[in-house]
């Protein structure tokens, strides 16, 4: 292997499988995804709703893991457990034809939780950290507490998941039916007919322009979210896109989940420093 290839492989390894850093962004994602999971399924699979022992068991698993994930107790296991529970709900939704369960927003939530389990997301803002601090205090020789630092390769996989999502949804929209605005108009007919936004249907040209814009933005985001120097415009654009989806269409938890996952795109050290700064700590991040 030539030196150039070796250097490239080393850079790829540092970017992906060996990526490490501050765990604060991952911890924030952990708390946010747990909240989204509870708000998505809590009302639908509460014990009072359950009709058979299998769902009761699944419900019990889900609530146990999602609570652990929220407070950060055995965080990695909790993330895996929550992700697998949501994935089982996704599959069960398809098998039993339960409306809204076998949807992309549920799949994205499940995969994000599972991938978050591949990060050291329990080393910040968690019971796990509190326990580690307590252990460290019992050892007098130790002056420093446990570092908010660890493996983050799952965070890179989340970034790839977002990129793939944008790319493949743009591929799906790259046809005459969507680019002419017809498919978007159909969506609006279902969503807006008889409602305040019905007037939008009187402007098919505007809908076609909107459709083309969405496709261009999705193709651009598929690449730009992986290039840090493009983040300055790509991240606000992506967040605006998801805010637009949330306001204009009944997307359930899709937009909220995608927006939370944008934390995976940021440099963990910068997130850490930013949190230090807004909390009035010094500029030196104490994980380094």
């Amino acid at each position, binding site marked *: 292997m030539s030196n150039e290839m070796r250097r490239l492989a080393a850079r790829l390894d*540092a970017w992906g499988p060996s990526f490490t850093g501050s765990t604060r962004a991952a911890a924030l994602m952990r708390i946010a995804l747990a909240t989204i999971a509870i708000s998505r399924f809590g009302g639908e699979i509460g014990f009072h709703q359950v009709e058979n022992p299998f769902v009761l068991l699944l419900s019990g698993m889900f609530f146990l893991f999602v609570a652990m994930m929220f407070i950060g107790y055995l965080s990695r296991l909790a993330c895996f457990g929550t992700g697998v529970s949501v994935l089982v709900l996704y599959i069960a939704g398809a098998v039993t034809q339960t*409306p809204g369960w076998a949807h992309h927003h549920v799949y994205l939530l499940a995969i994000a939780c599972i991938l978050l389990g591949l990060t050291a997301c329990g080393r910040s803002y968690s019971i796990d950290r509190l326990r580690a601090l307590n252990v460290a205090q019992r050892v007098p020789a130790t002056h420093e507490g446990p570092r908010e630092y660890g493996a983050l390769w799952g965070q890179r996989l989340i970034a790839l998941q977002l990129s793939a999502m944008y790319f493949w*949804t743009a591929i799906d929209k790259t046809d005459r039916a969507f680019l002419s605005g017809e498919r978007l108009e*159909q969506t609006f*007919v279902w969503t807006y007919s*008889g409602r305040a936004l019905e007037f939008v249907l009187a402007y098919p040209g505007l809908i076609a322009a909107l459709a083309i814009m969405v496709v261009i933005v999705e193709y651009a985001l598929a690449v730009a979210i992986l290039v*840090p120097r493009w983040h300055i415009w790509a991240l606000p654009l992506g967040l605006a896109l998801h805010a637009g989806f949330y306001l204009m269409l009944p997307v359930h938890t899709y937009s909220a989940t995608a927006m939370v996952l944008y934390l995976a795109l940021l440099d*963990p050290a910068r997130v850490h420093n930013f949190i230090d700064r807004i909390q009035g700590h010094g500029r030196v991040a104490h994980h380094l």
Partner: protein
Amino acid sequence: MRGETTSADDIDGTASRLGGLPVLARRFGFGLIALFILLAPAAGQVFGVHHLLLREWVMYSGVGVGIPQGEFLIWRDDTVVARLSPLDALDLPAYPRVIHYTFEHRILSNEDFAGFATRLCAERDTYGGDRVSFEGVIGTREGWQAASQDNLCERSLRRAAASRSGEEMRGVE
């Protein structure tokens, strides 16, 4: 990435110990999962092999499919006595806030027009009409498709009769 200081730059030599997994296993796992994430949607979206766990990112692609856009016309002989929107035909103020795919009145084939017009046919007398037709378009995955349907009430009656006879047969069984 060049020129920026990232947290990964600060830990040369420690990465192999993090995460509790040997380096090779982590690299292999990362590559495998990354390939799955990036390429699994191709199974359905390119090659037409659909599976629940090979998630296709085709969000909202089917919303609006089977929804008519146009007018239901109530006729008396050769004169139109009333023009109704699809929502008026169903006597709905708006399409329900349920998942689109569970909406029972979606028109996925010409036979489904009769079902959409069932209520209208039952009440055509109140408009002084004797037959119902539809002129407009129907939502499909390929965009709007022109649709022109006449004598919907006759089909609606046939459909109701077939449904009744089916129920009776099931009762005999």
